[in-house]
């Protein structure tokens, strides 16, 4: 029996889909059987990030309506045998999937996969409720901005109310230089406000966006620090204790010299 994990945030555009794609891929890299479920019906994206958009024949709504078998709708990843995607429908809207159907579907997937990763739509309405209902665990994604933190706070309140197993926090797109200058909320501040366990911190990197556009999750490119951050998250999900990465920017010759001469 696997674990269902929902990725949620409240606010849109903080990187739920990117995080789902990368963490799922990282779990697959670690040899787990993973199924990604795109619950953002009407606005599907996960297939694009995974580079699987041209393989979709059936979607989650077809499965729910009984128009096809579950296995027919699952799309196998190009790179990993044991990583599959259950895409959302693009033509329907959020009402096409009920809470009961979603729970039934995810429970069925949990029989054959170690992890079922649910990509939640933005907002806290029906779509959120449907995506969250089957989850055993929630990962709340936020960025170091007041708007995103406040929405994450709201979502955490809702998750606590619905008793979705202890939510954990991913802070996405942090920029160490801005934090240093005091222009961005720092991690401690966010964690203190949200009162929630930190699962990982992803440094901001344009290569994350570039790779998403190419349909190739950045986690496969080991030269990118964000990839390591995603892999660390996957390891933490599996129960390993991995220390947080150092987010100090790689300093050039001048930086090193300055450090050496005059302290910081």
């Amino acid at each position, binding site marked *: 029996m696997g674990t269902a994990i929902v990725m949620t945030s409240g606010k849109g555009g903080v990187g739920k889909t990117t995080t789902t794609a990368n963490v799922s891929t990282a779990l697959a890299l670690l040899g787990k059987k993973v199924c990604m479920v795109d619950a953002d019906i009407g606005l599907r994206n996960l297939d694009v990030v995974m580079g699987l958009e041209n393989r979709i024949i059936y979607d989650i709504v077809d499965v729910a309506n009984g128009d096809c078998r579950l296995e027919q709708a699952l799309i196998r990843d190009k790179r990993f045998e044991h990583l599959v995607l259950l895409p959302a429908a693009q033509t329907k809207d959020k009402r096409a999937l009920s809470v009961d159907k979603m729970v039934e579907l995810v429970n069925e997937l949990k029989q054959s996969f170690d992890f079922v990763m649910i990509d939640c739509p933005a907002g806290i309405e029906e779509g959120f409720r449907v995506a969250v209902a089957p989850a055993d665990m929630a990962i709340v994604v936020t960025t170091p901005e007041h708007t995103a933190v*406040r929405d994450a*706070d709201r979502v955490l309140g809702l998750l*606590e109310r619905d008793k979705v197993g202890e939510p954990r926090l991913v802070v996405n797109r942090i920029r160490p230089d801005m934090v240093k200058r005091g222009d961005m909320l720092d991690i401690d501040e966010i964690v203190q406000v*949200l*009162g929630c366990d930190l699962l990982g911190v992803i440094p901001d990197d344009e290569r994350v966006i570039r790779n998403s556009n190419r349909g190739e999750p950045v986690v496969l490119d080991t030269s990118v620090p964000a990839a390591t951050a995603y892999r660390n998250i996957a390891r933490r999900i599996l129960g390993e204790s991995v220390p947080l990465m150092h987010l100090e920017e790689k300093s050039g010759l001048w930086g090193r010299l300055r450090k050496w001469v005059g302290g910081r």
Partner: protein
Amino acid sequence: MILESEPLMDHRPPVTVKGTREGLTFLLDERADVDQICAYLETLITGETGKLFEGPTVDVYVDYGKRALTPQETWRILDVFRKRDNFLVRAWGSAKEVRDTSRRHRDARAQHIYHGLVRSGQPLSFDGDVVIIGDVNPSAVVEATGDIYVFGRLLGIAHAGVGGDETAVVAAAEFAPMQIRIADVVSRAPQMRATMEYAYLEGREMRVAEMKYFLPWHKIRKRSGRDERR
């Protein structure tokens, strides 16, 4: 609370003291002589046993049973109580009145303790005073008909004295609220973060002061304004 003034045994002392949640209740034997009561009371609260009553201000309720007291007798007994300066006589009357007073007193201020983080969009309201053990996050709202005390960071909106109680206060260990409301007065907090502060109304104007001024001020308030309201 137990108050029984009907069958008093002869061997009972002329004054019985009962400690209750509200304070001390003195039962004066309705058949005993006033001189006897005064003498007994005086030795009780100022003599050997007086040490028992030392400490902070305590609310005192006096029940003289069904006795018909003359004004002179009333003053004689009250004068004895005045010998202890930490006694605050809150009620003076025959059995039923006193019982009612202390009960009304208790009902008037329900008290709550809320453990946990108050998140945005999670409205909380309380009847009476509330102590929140945890933070109140930005854009979370806490309402109470009485006072609000936050043992943590107050970053959201606090509304004390919802029913119109202008003596209500909002206090926090870390005081950086988005907005403070007391009764119907709304105030936007300055962009600051202070520790151990509280907000109160003076006239119709909101004031913020350090917590170290809270206790003396609170006592004065308790003696004047609030008693009349009750």
